């Protein structure tokens, strides 16, 4: 219990540090600091009201306090170009990013765990000798490049899949859930999710393989062998079950990294998610939107790091955090 509390405080501290860093970055940039919030195109009146709302006419420490206060209320400002509250824009993009990330992870981890266990089983064989360099290669291939190849083949050449976006033109839905469950949405999701899964499967695969190899040398596996249990059962019941722990932790960690890390895949496939919003906001100098998207991505990362840590403690009784250096 004490560990959970310490870990939670630690996460809050890190979040505070990231928020502060962001404040400094956006204020200390070259040029007028007010440009971070106020578009030149606004009328003098609305400029004044935004200045007052964010306290841009006050001293830096006061601005900072107001900035933190606004963040706590979920007040992220208004986008320069879309002219809507930043909060609404990022929240509308979040389901697309989460679906892409989550489905991609599930595909990658289901494949990776099975293939990794198989390769541990085949240790020293020709299959392993060929498979390992290939797996390392898929981890080294830029996702956007893989996406470009898939697009060229399956969208442009064969015409099996749409070349971008998340919906066909003119598609209308009554609710967000109906949209996410429609066949059209999944048709658009297929190529981006495949690209993501191809890139991701290497980590769970290698992790599963190496932990399985270690587990096969543990005492309890030797014990099971001495008891005369069939090898297949030993692998499935004992070794694989224990090897799942680091894989589960890696899953949570990747989830956090990917909410912001999907930037390039979302750009290649014009997938309307958070990462693409960030890229568009930065290239059009839409500072409030860029800041909001970056903040959301950071929160996701820190929250999933916390979850991964708690998961690890919860699942592995051997980890005692009281004595950790």
């Amino acid at each position: 219990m004490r560990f959970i509390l310490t870990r939670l405080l630690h996460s809050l501290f890190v979040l505070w540090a990231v928020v502060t860093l962001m404040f400094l970055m956006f204020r200390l940039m070259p040029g007028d600091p007010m440009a971070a919030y106020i578009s030149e195109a606004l009328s003098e009146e609305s400029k004044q009201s935004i200045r007052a709302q964010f306290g841009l006419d006050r001293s830096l420490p006061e601005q900072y306090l107001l900035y933190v206060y606004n963040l706590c209320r979920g007040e992220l400002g208004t986008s320069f170009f879309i002219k809507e509250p930043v909060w609404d824009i990022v929240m509308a993009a979040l389901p697309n990013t989460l679906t892409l990330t989550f489905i991609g992870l599930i595909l990658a981890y289901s494949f990776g765990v099975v293939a990794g266990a198989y390769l541990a089983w085949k240790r020293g064989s020709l299959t392993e000798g060929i498979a390992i360099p290939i797996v390392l290669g898929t981890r080294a291939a830029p996702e956007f490049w893989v996406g470009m190849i898939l697009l060229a083949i399956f969208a442009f050449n064969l015409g099996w899949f749409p070349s971008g976006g998340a919906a066909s033109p003119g598609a209308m839905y009554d609710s967000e859930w109906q949209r996410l469950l429609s066949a059209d949405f999944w048709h658009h999701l297929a190529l981006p999710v495949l690209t993501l899964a191809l890139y991701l499967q290497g980590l769970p695969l290698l992790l599963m393989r190496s932990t399985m190899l270690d587990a096969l040398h543990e005492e309890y596996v030797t014990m099971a062998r001495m008891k005369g249990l069939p090898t297949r059962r030993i692998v499935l019941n004992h070794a694989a079950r224990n090897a799942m722990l680091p894989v589960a932790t890696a899953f949570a960690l990747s989830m956090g990294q990917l909410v912001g890390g999907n930037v390039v895949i979302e750009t290649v496939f014009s997938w309307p998610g958070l990462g693409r919003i960030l890229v568009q906001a930065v290239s059009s100098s839409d500072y409030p939107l860029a800041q909001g998207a970056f903040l959301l991505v950071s929160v996701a990362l820190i929250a999933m790091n916390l979850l991964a840590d708690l998961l690890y403690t919860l699942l592995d009784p051997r980890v005692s955090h009281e004595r950790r250096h």
Partner: protein
Amino acid sequence: MSAGTEPSYGLTKKILRLTGRDPFALAGISIYVVFALTALLANVIAPHDPMEILFLPDGNVAMNQRPSPSYWLGTTSLGRDVFSQLVFGARSALMVGLSAALVVVVVGTLVGLFSGYFGGWVDNVLMRIGDIALSIPFLPFIIVLAAFVKPNVWNVVIGVSALLWPNTGRIVRSQVLSLRERSYVEAAKVSGASHLNILFTHIAPNVLPISFLYGSIVVGWAIFTEASISFLGFGPSDTVSWGFMLQDAFVSQALSRGAYYWFIPSGVCIMLMVSAGFFISRGYEELLFPKLRD
């Protein structure tokens, strides 16, 4: 001093021996050597200037040419030679990769040395800063950084270094924790050597091989990141890099025209360079992580 007390000799020897024996390490190092030679001899190898607009004998711009003896990998939609761009791309890739790796190795090693040797509040402060750096979303941070400074290669180097040093720092720190208890360090202390003296003459030489091996992963990461940033359009527009080539191909409809010769080779180069880092670190895995679990 006898050979047994200074593990660095053993480690260096071990690295040399493993390079000869381990196919992964050998493959990784060969890839680095080939690309390094390409980068050095780019002027000699490339048949054209990578940014030069080429013309056909009939006076038209040589745009969208398919691969032929005069243009080995075809030309871009602006009539530039793809093969020459590929060759010069090795230069910027190596520059970005090596500078980022150097910064990460230097900063990570220093942090790890001080953190592990002095412990206490020094350790606490440095490791908390490391935690923060690792909690910043990698690519988004570098994109936001690109929003404030003029696009240039060094943004990527700064961004990658700022966020990746904690990994090296942690590994070095854990090494130092065990090294500082060794008898020869005790002996140096008793004989009146200063802390800095002990750190840099007795401990640092022993952790350097590990820092450098870790740096080989950073080389790949930096190249990968530079490619992503250039692809997103935040890279410098006057330097030819593999990411720049891919972005150029992407926005010039190379995909719908099926101009595979334009965008396949640069991706393969990135993949080879990044895999080389993986191969090397994998080849020396038993050195890097004596026991993976802590």
